[in-house]
């Protein structure tokens, strides 16, 4: 019996290897045709934050928010704008915002906040791997979005893409309705994202993002996000909230002993 199982395993392995060998040259050519985005990338915010870290004043930290474009004014419809204003005018919501603590961000603001990321480009998918453990999967194997029954809202949404020369064109849907996490902006469940990502030079990546939200916006919101190669890093430096010493006490963020 053992001999039979061993023979079957060998046969299976042989078949798998043969398939791999058959596909290898084609896959190598597909890899070779893709642009090289190797390395670690700073967002504009992480670049500013790392310049200041360890020696900034409080005001400077707050000023870093100016590098996060997605906290800026969006082209809201009057109805959505009124709804947001009413929600933000609620004192409880305001206190909640002041006490907000974030360890993960979700899409789209993960592309614009303080986390460094690695871009992994393969023929089948491109991954954006962030230092806080969040990952974006952009499938480039020709598939479309899942059918309605197979698709539900998530923090990252569902992304598929294709290459137009050296530009990765990404289409994202099914982002969870709600706040962007930082700042006042909020999107509906129907928000639809298109991105054109390219590397204009060796040390720069660029993401031309368009957000179309038929419920919240009067017109598409266009942003261009810039990334710079983190030339001082040779490896990912993970970030997490394992030693969170900032509990919310009596409605305020405080400092706990070690």
């Amino acid at each position, binding site marked *: 019996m053992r001999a039979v199982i061993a023979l079957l395993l060998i046969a299976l392995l042989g078949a798998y290897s043969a398939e791999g060998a058959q596909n290898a040259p084609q896959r190598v050519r597909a890899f070779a045709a893709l642009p090289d985005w190797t390395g670690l990338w*700073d967002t504009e*915010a992480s670049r500013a*934050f*790392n*310049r200041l*870290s*360890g*020696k*900034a*004043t*409080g005001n400077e*930290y*707050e000023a*870093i*928010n*100016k590098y996060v474009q997605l*906290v*800026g*004014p*969006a082209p*809201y*419809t*009057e109805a959505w704008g009124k709804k947001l*204003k009413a929600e*933000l005018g609620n004192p409880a919501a*305001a206190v909640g*915002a*002041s*006490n*907000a*603590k*974030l*360890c993960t961000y979700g899409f789209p603001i993960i592309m614009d906040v*303080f*986390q*460094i990321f690695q871009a992994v480009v393969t023929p089948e998918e491109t991954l954006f791997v962030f*230092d806080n453990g969040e990952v974006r999967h952009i499938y480039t194997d020709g598939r479309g979005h899942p059918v309605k029954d197979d698709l539900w809202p998530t923090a990252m949404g569902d992304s598929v893409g294709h290459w137009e020369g050296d530009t990765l064109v990404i289409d994202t849907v099914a982002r969870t309705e709600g706040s962007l996490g*930082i*700042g*006042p*902006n909020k999107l509906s469940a129907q928000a639809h994202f298109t991105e054109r990502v390219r590397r204009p030079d060796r040390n720069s990546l660029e993401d031309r993002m368009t957000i179309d939200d038929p419920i919240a916006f009067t017109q598409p919101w266009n942003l261009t996000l810039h990334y710079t190669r*983190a*030339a*001082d*890093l040779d490896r990912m*430096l*993970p*970030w*997490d*909230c*394992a*030693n*969170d*010493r*900032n509990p919310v006490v009596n409605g*305020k*963020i*405080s*400092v706990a002993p*070690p």
Partner: protein
Amino acid sequence: MWRTSTTGLALLLIARTGAAHHSGAMFDAQKSITLQGTVRLFQWTNPHCWIQLLVPSAAGTTEWSIEMGSNGNLYRNGWRASTLNAGERITVIIHPVRDGTAAGQFVSATAADGSSLGRASAPASQ
């Protein structure tokens, strides 16, 4: 029209929310305090690094908790886990927390010999 009218809201919330992990609003950025003391503990951790500093006071000794950036942020500015050790005497400038407890946000530090801890400025590549 709504693009303009929500701008004020944006500024309000940005001031409240903030850089990674939490807002800096808990610290009084208009006030700086200089602390001279002995390191009890240097936590090389995330989301923040911390210095526990024993500072002589009228009441005896007060332990201050000093919040820094993440270890990745500090690493990129020349800090290492070995930069500070228990028993070292240092001088630290902080922005104190608004609630009056013995805690604050790190601004800068110097060793007993007067040298700066960490890089004075970030590399040009950043």
